C-alpha cells in the first residue's frame, strides 16, 4: 500500500476532523481525494505539520490530526520531545512512514534504514505510540479518535506516488476557510 492509497482509505474518517497536512504530495493527494475546509494544506516549510497541529490542539478543544511523513519528522526531530512534554489529548500525529522522501523523487530516508520512528517517539517520552501497517491505518486512527488520548501513529507503508496536480488555492484562502471551520474567526 502506498501513501495515496492510505489517504484514500482514511479520507472518510478525516472528512469531519481538523487536519494539518504535510507539504508536497501528501497535501496534493488529500486535496485531490477529498478537499475539505477542515484541511490545512502546507504549501511550504517542510517538517512543521506536527508543530502546527500541536499548537492548534493546545489552543482549542476540537480534535486535530497532523498528517506527517517520516522525512518531515526527521527534519524537525525536536518536535517529538515538545509533543511528549505538552500533552494535548485532542491531538493525533499520523506519520506516514514509507521510508522515503516521496515528494522529491523517493530518495530513501534513515527511517527506512536502521532508525525506528516508533522507538524514537517512545524514547522522547510520547505515551501512546502505535505502529501499524498501511492497511490497518483506518482502524488505528478511529481508535485513537475514540480514545481521547494524545496518540502518535506510525503507519508503515510502501514508497511510491501517483500523478497529482499542485494546489493552486491561495494560502490566505486556505487559512481563512480553515479558521472558519475551526471556529476561531
Amino acid at each position, binding site marked *: 500500500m502506498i501513501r495515496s492509497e492510505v489517504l484514500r482509505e482514511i479520507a472518510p474518517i478525516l472528512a469531519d476532523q481538523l487536519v494539518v497536512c504535510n507539504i508536497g504530495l501528501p497535501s496534493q493527494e488529500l486535496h485531490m481525494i477529498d478537499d475539505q475546509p477542515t484541511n490545512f494544506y502546507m504549501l511550504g516549510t517542510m517538517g512543521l505539520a506536527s*508543530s502546527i497541529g500541536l499548537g492548534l490542539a493546545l489552543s482549542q478543544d476540537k480534535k486535530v490530526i497532523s498528517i506527517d511523513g517520516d522525512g518531515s519528522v526527521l527534519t524537525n526531530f525536536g518536535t517529538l520531545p515538545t509533543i511528549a512534554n505538552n500533552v494535548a489529548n485532542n491531538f493525533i500525529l499520523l506519520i506516514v512512514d514509507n521510508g522515503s522522501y516521496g515528494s522529491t523523487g523517493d530518495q530513501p530516508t534513515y527511517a527506512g534504514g536502521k532508525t525506528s520512528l516508533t522507538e524514537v517517539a517512545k524514547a522522547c517520552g510520547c505515551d501512546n505510540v502505535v505502529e501499524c501497517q498501511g492497511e490497518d491505518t483506518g482502524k488505528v486512527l478511529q481508535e485513537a479518535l475514540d480514545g481521547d488520548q494524545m496518540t502518535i501513529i506510525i503507519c508503515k507503508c510502501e514508497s511510491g506516488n501517483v500523478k497529482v496536480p499542485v494546489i493552486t488555492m491561495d494560502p490566505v484562502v486556505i487559512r481563512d476557510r480553515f479558521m472558519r471551520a475551526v471556529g476561531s474567526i
Partner: protein
Amino acid sequence: MSVSEKIVSDLVANQVSFVTTVPCKQLAGVIDEVEKSKDIYHIPANKEDEGMGLCAGAYMGGKRPAIIMQNTAIGVTINTLVTLTQYYRMPLPMLISYRGELGEPVACQVEMAVHTKALLAQLNIPTYHFHKEEDVEELDSILKYTFMCNKPVAILTDASFWQGY
C-alpha cells in the same frame, strides 16, 4: 516593575496567551516571567522554526501567539517566516535578543549581528530596536500594530536595553 515584568504585562494586556521560547542569556529574565504568568501557556521549543509552527497553529486555534528568541534564529527561520507566517498572513510578535551589539563579550555573536537588520529589511519585516530602557514603552503599540496587520514583527533588544547580561 522590572523590564521583564513590563514586557509580560504588555503581552497579557494584548491577549497574548501562547508564547514559545528558545533561550538566550539576555532573555532569561523575561522567559522566567513568561513561565510564571498564569495567563500565558509557555511552550519551550527546541528550534525557532518549530516554535513558529507552534505559533501558527495557536493562531489558527484562536490564540494570540508570540515567540522569544535570539537574533541568530533569523538565520534558522527565514524559510518559515516567508512560506508560513508571511505566506498565510499570520501575526507574530518576535521578541529578539540582539546579540553582538555594544557590550557583547562573545566575538562570534557579532557575525550574525551585522546581518540581522539587513535580513529583516530584506524580508520586509517591520523592525523595532529597543536600545534604552524607556524604549519598552513602545511595546504595547507594537503588539497592537502586529495584530492589526497580521505580519511577523521584530523587536530587537540589545545589551544596553537589558543593561548588560
